[in-house]
């Protein structure tokens, strides 16, 4: 009985969606549906143990923009339970006035040029985790949602890896 009810509800919902879709088509020329960039090779620098002042890490990936217009990665939200309560930031590493390399937020987000890709990697662009509440061991996974300038979002899974080849 319960099954048939839900099936009926689902059928009803489908009809509503179909009508809504028809309505959208009817509204042409509307703005085309925004396209979500793709993310591949998503990984996060492992944090085997939380040490004072070191409870942070970066997420890296390759983002590809298949559209004819630039899209920016403007934000990210952690979706891994209990990992952090601090907002994530989009960062770059640049040379400061004093000649030292420093990390800073990217004004306007990371640009993924039209029909091109951009790679976030150590020493360059990254998505920053602050104030970790638990370690991220090598081989474990964290999930987060990427936010783009065209209003689209993308859920990604990052595998934790070590950077140094002889960390011991």
């Amino acid at each position, binding site marked *: 009985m319960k099954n048939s009810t839900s099936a009926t509800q689902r059928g009803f919902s489908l009809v509503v969606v179909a009508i809504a879709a028809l309505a959208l088509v009817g509204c042409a020329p509307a703005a085309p549906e925004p396209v979500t960039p793709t993310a591949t090779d998503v*990984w996060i620098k*492992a944090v085997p143990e939380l040490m004072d002042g070191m409870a942070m890490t970066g997420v*890296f990936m390759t983002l590809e923009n298949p559209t004819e217009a630039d899209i920016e990665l403007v934000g990210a939200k952690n979706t891994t339970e209990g990992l952090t309560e601090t907002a994530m930031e989009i960062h770059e590493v640049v040379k400061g006035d004093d000649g030292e390399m420093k990390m800073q937020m990217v004004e306007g987000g990371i640009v993924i040029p039209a029909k091109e890709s951009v790679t976030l990697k*150590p020493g360059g662009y990254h998505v920053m985790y602050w104030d970790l509440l638990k370690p991220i061991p*090598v*081989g474990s996974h964290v999930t987060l949602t990427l936010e783009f300038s065209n209003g689209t979002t993308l859920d990604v899974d990052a*595998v934790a890896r070590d950077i*140094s*080849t002889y*960390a011991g």
Partner: protein
Amino acid sequence: MTHTPAEAQAETEVTRRGFLASAGVVSSYVAAGVAGFAGGAVTASAVSASSLCTQSQLRAQEQAATIPFFGDYQAGIMTPLQAYGTYMAFNLKSSTGIDQARSMMQLLTDDAARLAVGKPTLPDGDPYLATEPARLTSTFGFGPGFFSKLGLAGKMPVGFGELPAFSIDKLQPEYSGGDLVIHVGADNPLTVAHAARQLTRTANTFATPLWSQTGFNRPQYGEPTDQTGRNLFGQVDGTVNPRSAQEFDAQVWASSGPRWFHDGTCLVIRRIQMDFAGWDKLDDTKKEASMGRRLSNGAPLTGTSEFDKPDLEAKNAHGLSVIPAFAHVRRANTGKDTEKFLRRPLNYEDGLLPSGEPNAGLIFAAYMADIQKQFVPVQQRLADLDLLNTWITPIGSAVFALPPGARRGGYIGEGLLG
């Protein structure tokens, strides 16, 4: 008859390929479905390539050649021997349980699959070193300690375990044992070094490095492919290896015992130090008598070509055996099909011994379905009597069980750890 240079080139290539195809070694490797050998056939024509342009294109092809990582069997076993290789052993950390071991094999699989197609690993800080795979293979195996430390002793393959002590052994701990082995092979030494370092990073999280042995062989390209490689004593080594898929099935791939190990195989690694001062004092007749084969082409002393079957009954004019009782070939030879296996050796030369002699020899790597049945009887006969023992000393020894290959989306060792 007039040929354009291009036509002449094409004809030469066809002729050479026809020749190669008729040679037993090549055709059987092709029959065995060994991907990547096409690279070898193509490069053989480099010998006849007249223009520099063609030669450089062929070299680029050699460097770009890939061996598929995913498949029924692990790569790097049936794969025709690459010119360079490294075997690395690790011991599991006490903090590594079965969950961590699974994680390690998943990450190693991901690393190896990327490197095999010329891509860097995810955390690769030197990605440009990954761009020339040159038939790169990465192969993984588990030592006896892997099973005991993870509580998997009941899942050990049949016939797998430590070798008995042999009287000739002078084993050194720095070349012996290990819970995990990683074998990397490629036709480019820089590729091997880079892949080894990438895989080591991953292993180091879960295990401690124990030893690493690097070696080399004659490159396959630009050489006659119908002759087996040579060791540093100049001996042709590997003549009786399995070559057809049927022979690999019979000798190398496990088909009984625990289900997870089917299509896997066992690996025995022995580091054999060579005494060059002693060997150099021998004349060719003595060298050939100790082996039972000719130095020139590896033919048995009773035959004319490498792949002739040694005639152990043959006598000379004095009524003595042509292949002496102490000859390596006679001692290693077995009438039994159950005592055959694959050898995939590497030569090593690591600087000097304290005496000033070269620290050099052979990284003997043998692959078989069952160590006890196939390998131990042969090694026992060689330990009991083999004139070659006069100039060679086993100084390292290790055994590993190599799981079958992985499917895309799976990982090496999944049947055991999944």
